[in-house]
């Protein structure tokens, strides 16, 4: 805060002390140029491939012409529509199940059995250390056994995805829990007559919204981009469908339009979630 207000506050004084003021001004200008350069370099690094992707998807059948057919055919392309639907459904189910499992567990451990915290953390971070391919080798027989008895839709992938999402969701929620004094809040609520259910639902969770949104976003992004496991377990989700398109290479435009659309969807989701978070914050601050 101080750093922000200092330049304007000292501006008149600086004018009176020309030599030193000059140094500061030059340094500030240099910093600004450095920042802009960094921003441009990284912006180019990320945006040029995106631009190329979108440009390619908008190319017509002959060079120099443009067409939106690659975009309009996303849903009519054989198999792609259902793959998108399945992936979106998986994203929702995985998000809900992960939060449903992890949030109460983490709050309970934090409040009632803090000595179990390390154990839970270890278990949740474990999937990070196991390569997806190893996970599949372990899980394939499990899925095969279940398949013998009941036919499974691709939606059953949510089980694996929940495991994959655990480390990210855990970290996001742990950060949120660390930022509030959950224990004191819970004890205060208890002494005012709140049951444990009320404590969690009305006191702890409302103060964790930002963390819950972050965890959900990470989980959803993970599901949207997952390829290895779905492919190896012979399910077709969005990424698998895109891969198939790229191999048939009859219509590479669709491949890129769909990828761009998926990316765009993630962006919109990210913006929407951060907007929700900020609005809650602003509503709180508006009453200053």
């Amino acid at each position, binding site marked *: 805060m101080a750093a922000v207000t200092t330049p304007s506050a000292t501006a008149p004084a600086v004018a009176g002390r020309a030599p030193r003021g000059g140094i500061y001004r030059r340094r500030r200008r240099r910093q600004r140029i450095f920042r802009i350069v960094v921003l441009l370099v990284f912006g180019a690094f990320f945006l040029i491939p995106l631009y190329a992707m979108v440009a390619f998807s908008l190319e017509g059948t002959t060079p120099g012409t443009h067409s939106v057919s690659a975009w309009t055919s996303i849903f009519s392309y054989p198999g792609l529509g259902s793959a998108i639907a399945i992936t979106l459904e998986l994203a929702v189910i995985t998000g809900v199940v992960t939060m449903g499992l992890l949030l109460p567990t983490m709050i309970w451990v934090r409040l009632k059995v803090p000595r179990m915290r390390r154990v839970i953390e270890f278990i949740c971070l474990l999937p990070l250390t196991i390569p997806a391919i190893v996970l599949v080798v372990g899980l394939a027989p499990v899925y095969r056994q279940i398949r013998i008895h009941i036919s499974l839709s691709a939606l059953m992938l949510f089980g694996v995805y929940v495991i994959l999402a655990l480390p990210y969701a855990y970290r996001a929620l742990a950060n949120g829990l660390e930022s509030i*004094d959950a224990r004191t809040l819970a*004890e*205060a609520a208890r*002494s005012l*007559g*709140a*049951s444990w259910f009320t404590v969690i639902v009305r006191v702890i969770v409302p103060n964790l919204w930002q963390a819950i949104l972050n965890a959900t976003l990470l989980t959803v992004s993970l599901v949207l981009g997952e390829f290895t496991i779905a492919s190896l377990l012979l399910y077709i989700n969005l990424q698998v469908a895109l891969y198939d398109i790229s191999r048939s290479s009859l219509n590479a435009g669709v491949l890129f339009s769909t990828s761009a659309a998926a990316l765009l969807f993630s962006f919109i989701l990210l913006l929407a979630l951060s907007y929700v978070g900020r609005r809650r914050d602003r509503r709180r601050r508006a*009453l200053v």
Partner: protein
Amino acid sequence: MTAAETVPDRGGVEVRLESLRREYGSVVALDGFDLTLSPGELVALLGPSGCGKTTTLRLLAGLEDADGGRVVVDGKDITNVPANKRNMGMVFQAYSLFPHFTVWQNVGFGLRLRGMDKAAQKQRAHEMLELVGLSAQAERYSHQLSGGQQQRVALARALAIQPQVLLLDEPLSALDAKVRAQLRDQIRQIQLEVGITTLFVTHDQEEALAISDRVGVMKDGRLEQLANPTEVYARPATSFVAEFVGLSNRLLGQVHGGHVEVRGVSLPLVDPTTPDGQVTALIRPEAVTIAAHASEESGPLVGSVIAQTFLGATSRVTVDLGDTTIMAQLGTSEAAAYPAGSQVSLKIREDPVLVAEGPAAAVAEGEEPAAG
């Protein structure tokens, strides 16, 4: 949700803690702890960290389970009643306001849980905020309040549910000195106004002495002394109490015939039955005064001033007596006459003094083998 109906009229209830026991692994935090609070009384538990004072409060609140003993409030055994059914108001050391609620919603939370409608909640919340002088801040959030304001809201929130007992767990320790003194007095005033039985836990002896009806000095999970503040200060029951409550000079002395002879001065004993022998006498700095600039070179109570600590209206002067140092407390203007280096002779007022058993006893009890 029926708790609201069971609240008796204000006027306070009796609280009895009977041989409470609490262990954390192999550490015994409380060991056969007994304490009775009369209706409407404010008792402060005072002691160093780890003495079991907070554990006592948490057992009374139901935030921890006792390993033995009973908690009886208003004649009812509530030892096994969970915290949310106990109807006790509590103010915590850490800021505990719910960040997602406004001030009045915080105060009204307990009422909301008791099924009170929103208009009534709001009205009662405003009454309580008026009591703590914060009705203008009702629509604010906790992060917009100062530490002192937050604790006052926490007090209003605790009292809003008309609890049977008020529990204060070092509510002032996070505040700066001036706010602390103000809020301390305000708490006492409100407590008297509401007439609620209150247990106040603190490690600050000044706080405990200032606002309580009785002070319980604790050590190692036991009560060393339970008495009114004047008594605790003037007639400490043990040397630990004398040490912990206020400063004491520790001087070697010789007991004979109900008096103790300290550096040539004969002083009466708090406990006249003390057997004869060598002891450590505990003498308050305010019982020591500087008589004059010393004319003679040496004597049992002659020495040179080595330091002065300015305390405001009074100053503490440390005098080197050769074999030991002694602290005297006198008016600041008076103390100014004796700058560091001046040779002075001291006088000890003939207040009853407490003695520790012998020079070795202090060390055996695990205390600092301090000056004297």
